[in-house]
């Protein structure tokens, strides 16, 4: 039966996260963007919601709620509304936890999932993107070669959030033509973390380039063990999460520019009273809602165990364009003021521009 109503439980999660976004994230996000740091306190506070531990089964130490990509999409939108850098930082451990939960072998689940159920934030990350214009997650240049009881990983990665502090890293590499994940523990030999990246947006999120120089990991560290993993499914989870995040960023920009347009007077009336401005806002509202539901549907398909490739990739493609258009319109509505860093819309435009580049950088 078609329904657009979140469940009561989901609504409670939305309310909690939304309150956190308003009262905590929104107080700090500009400062974080300017100085490139996110205070540990805010990350710890978010950790207390159990956004990751919540859907890890009790036998691994989690709270044992059913893992739901739809719920994840709802959370992702609210967090990204608060701030994209913080949202990605908060959810970063899920880049390891959820693929292990979804595709890991029993041994991997038993060994690693409890790490994400502790009281303190557990820095963990994934390395998927590679520094070249024609990056393709299904045709990676980073390779994995089996050598005795070890896999040897070679290649270069970029946009790896929290790489320097991560205790666990899921590295994606090409093995026999297919993308597979490899669990790399902190300090593995041949893993060289590069300089912190300087990007147009996501400035508060610490991301890194890294090199894998014959990096050796035990054979049993391949995600899914003997069976390997269905990488496309993991990618689809990420597409749903990122689409929902794009909606969050777009909604932030839309709401701000709507308020501004009602307060800013020109020629004796609010600029919102002119159709040129009002219609931009209406179109933004329409596209934001449409994209949100596309993200939900893709997430719902994943929850149902369906192949979500078509809808998830269409949602992501649509969201990439939508968030750029909406954040750009928001800057435009503020005119010169939109270009000034006293207002947040330029930040949202910089962050929004990134979605088309972000592959696999969030998962719910």
């Amino acid at each position, binding site marked *: 039966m078609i329904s657009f109503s979140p469940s009561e439980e989901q609504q409670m999660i939305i309310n909690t996260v939304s309150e956190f976004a308003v009262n905590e994230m929104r107080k700090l996000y500009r400062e974080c963007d300017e100085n490139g740091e996110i205070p540990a306190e805010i990350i710890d506070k978010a950790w207390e919601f159990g956004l990751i531990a919540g859907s890890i089964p009790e036998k691994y130490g989690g709270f044992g709620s059913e893992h739901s990509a739809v719920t994840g999409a709802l959370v992702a939108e609210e967090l990204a509304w608060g701030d994209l850098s913080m949202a990605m930082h908060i959810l970063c451990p899920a880049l390891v936890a959820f693929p292990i939960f979804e595709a890991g072998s029993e041994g991997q689940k038993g060994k690693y999932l409890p790490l994400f159920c502790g009281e303190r934030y557990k820095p963990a990350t994934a390395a998927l993107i590679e520094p070249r214009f024609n990056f393709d997650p299904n045709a990676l240049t980073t390779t994995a070669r089996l050598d005795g009881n070890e896999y040897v990983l070679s290649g270069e990665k970029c946009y790896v959030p929290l790489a320097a502090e991560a205790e666990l890293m899921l590295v994606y590499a090409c093995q026999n033509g297919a993308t597979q994940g490899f669990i790399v523990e902190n300090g593995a030999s041949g893993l060289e973390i590069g300089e912190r990246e300087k990007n147009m947006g996501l400035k508060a999120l610490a991301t890194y380039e890294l090199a894998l120089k014959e990096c050796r990991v035990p054979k049993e560290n391949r995600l899914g063990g003997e069976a390997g993993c269905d990488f496309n499914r993991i990618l689809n989870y990420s597409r749903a999460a990122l689409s929902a995040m794009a909606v969050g960023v777009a909604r932030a920009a839309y709401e701000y520019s709507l308020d501004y347009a009602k307060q800013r007077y020109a020629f004796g009336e609010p600029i*919102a009273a002119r159709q040129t401005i009002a219609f931009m806002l209406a179109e933004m509202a329409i596209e934001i809602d449409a994209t949100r539901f596309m993200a939900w549907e893709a997430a719902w398909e994943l929850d149902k165990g369906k192949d979500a490739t078509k809808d998830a990739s269409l949602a992501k493609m649509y969201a990439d364009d939508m968030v750029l258009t909406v954040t750009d319109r928001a800057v435009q509505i503020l005119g010169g003021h939109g270009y000034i860093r006293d207002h947040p819309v330029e930040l949202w435009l910089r962050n929004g521009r990134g979605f088309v580049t972000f592959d696999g950088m969030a998962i719910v």
Partner: protein
Amino acid sequence: MIDFEIPAEVEAAKKRARENAERLLRPIARYYDENEHESPDELIKELWRNPSLGMSAAMGLGPEVIFVMQESVRGDAGLSLCAPGAGLGGAAILVSATKEQRERFLKRFSEGEPKWGAMAITEAGCGSDTAAITTTAVRDGDEWVLNGEKIFATAGKRAVESGGVVVVWATVDKSAGRAGIKPFVVEGGTPGMKVEKLEHKLGIRASDTATLIFEDCRIPYDNILGSPEVIDKTKTTGFKKVMATFDLTRPFVAAMALGVGRAALDFVKETFDKEGVEIRYGWPRHKLSSVERDVMDMEANMKAAEMLTLRAVWMMGQGQRNDLQASMAKAKAGLAVTKVTQKAVELLGPLGYSRKNLVEKWMRDSKINDIFEGTGQINTLIVARRILGYTRDDLK
């Protein structure tokens, strides 16, 4: 619980609707496009005998109706619109009539010969600006006397000639502006209501679009929908209630729009498939051909419009006010299918432009969805006012 599951009975209804549309509508679609104003009598008889062969199959299915409606219109938009039934006039009656009126006006649609319902709002001098309506209704004892001229009444001729109903919007007090605008039901065959002409259109040619003249047309006093009183000129409650008709019809028009878009998109994909052109979903942008990007863009826009439409219909079923969402759906769907069908003509090259195929027809048919039941611009204006909390005076 957020859910996108389509129940099995809807899937079955969808499949039947597609088969019926392909059997009944597709084969004669071109003929009635080329022979405008000829009546598809056989089809009409069949749809009257068995309404579930057409769009009416969708009734009572919940928000998933839109999938079934899409399938029907996918067969042909113009022919779908000439299916007998209460139509838009019926929607207005459902929204604002008394029980007695419903019985008196709607019963005819389930008995006797085929009948149609129509809505007559637009005039030569006003479309979306309904407050500017000049057709008058003057009370004379137990009757109203209507005078004026209405244009663009979908199924207007059929409604008049079949003994159906026409819901006519007229003013009872010009000085009262919007508060004076009231809907009246005129039964087909009432003296003083006549068909002046039929329009020649860009598309949906099988559907008649009529100019109706009202010359001292007398109807019973009880044929007014809603309150006859112009209580307070500043209050337009009655008017708003009638406008609520559009909250009901706009999502369905959006669904019909999607049907035409789906026809074109399916044809493009089938043609490509036969030629071995693959659409590789999930591949990175830089590896896709421009044709693949175009098709994905079409798909995504259709999906976006479908989601908004589904939400608007779902809210209606939940008894929630859906005026904003209905306009969002209508604005998005009307524009999306206009673009999708235009792109389909482009992508298919000479096959798209040729009248040997239906793609060029679908492009012409689809355009009406960006115009009727409120243009894309009027719907965008409604959305804008609602999100800003502005009145019509705040945002003109």
